């Protein structure tokens, strides 16, 4: 999330990948850095250690959404500013 925020501050197209387990933390970091709406895409947890096939499947599944976010065609998954939970996926 911090990398995404830094990129967004440089006016670069960004989409932060945030897993379920870290979704509230991602929102906390975005909010405390003054960029609560920085684009992000929510993905299942865990990703690390799930194996190449699972990661390839995940990449394939989220690629269209990622591209849409990076093109500015979608805001990505947004967090409720009050509790950090996803309100639209």
């Amino acid at each position, binding site marked *: 999330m911090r990398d995404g925020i830094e990129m967004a501050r440089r006016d670069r197209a960004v989409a932060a990948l945030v897993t379920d387990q*870290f979704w509230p*933390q991602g929102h*906390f970091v975005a909010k*405390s850095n003054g960029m609560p709406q920085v684009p992000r895409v929510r993905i299942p947890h865990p990703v690390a250690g799930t194996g190449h096939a699972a990661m390839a499947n995940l990449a394939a599944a989220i690629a269209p959404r990622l591209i849409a976010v990076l093109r500015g065609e979608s805001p990505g998954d947004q967090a409720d500013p009050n509790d950090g939970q996803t309100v639209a996926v």
Partner: protein
Amino acid sequence: MTALLDAQDEAAALEYLHANDCTDGLPVVIPTPERVERMVLASGLDADIDLGPMGPGGGATTIAKIAANAVMAGCLPDYMPVVVAGINAILQPAFDLTEVQGTTHSIAPLMIVNGPMIAGCDIASGFGALGPGHRANASIGRAVRLCMMNIGGARPGTSDMALLGHPGKFSFCLAEDEASSPWEPLAASYGYAAEQSVVTIVGTEAPHSVVFVNDADDPDSPQRLLRALARVVANTGSNNAILRGGTVAIALNPEHAAVLGKAGLDRSDAQKRVAALATNPRGLVRSLNPGFGRDGDPDEELSSVDGPDNVVVFVAGGSGLYSAVFPSWAAGAHGNPVVHAPIETDQACVIPSRVE
């Protein structure tokens, strides 16, 4: 700015603080304006002085806020300069506090105090110095932790992502046993004069016990002790052994420190020897965590620390068989270095309620 809470009584105020995530889960002393003011006075600093933003939340670290948390932690006003020094230390960019607070690792800031404030605050360095029963140790470390939570915004599972944490995340403060040490105070290693009180902080795991029985008839005993310490530093479950970096701390009990001192080894010798001995074969590291080690000669010995300066050696604990190693996190932009800050006591003024 610090908001004031109206409550019917202190019991109600305590429940409010618990309900609003302002505590560490244990009861706190209610930070009434009078108590906070006394704590500010003890700092000798203006209440609105801002030491900087504290991550991950970026809260303004004012003296008034530090004082409120010190009151909540149960500090005596005399402890306030130590708490402020601790905060000054962890706010140094090199400490990477935002990342320290947010990591899934169980790192916590281990505070080691040197100098006259050890006696001034009665900070324990001997038996059970990191355990219960020592007011200064418990409340100073707790004050720093409460600041990290209430000013920095670290909350478990939301902004403090430690998967398990460790009990040192409640409080993690002790003094060096300067009187028993065969060496100069730890803070002198960083250029401080002996009359200067100093807080040294290393972000570490909980202490790992190292058992060692000396044999005065065995000339190899001092080296055996260093090997025993190095094997725990190189514990392959610890980040520093796998990520290969960071700063580890070693608390030598006075008996073990004397073994090294009598052998003519100084602190620097111990640091160098432990750093040299704390290695693991590449093949072992890769067999346990293939993702954290480049392929290469499986018999090549990989160091578990960057070098001698990344082994902080101090004397603490009761005399006996056990010393302790505090493994490191070994991450963050600055690589988990040691930080330190002087304890400023020349700003102090008389606290009104204590005037005879």
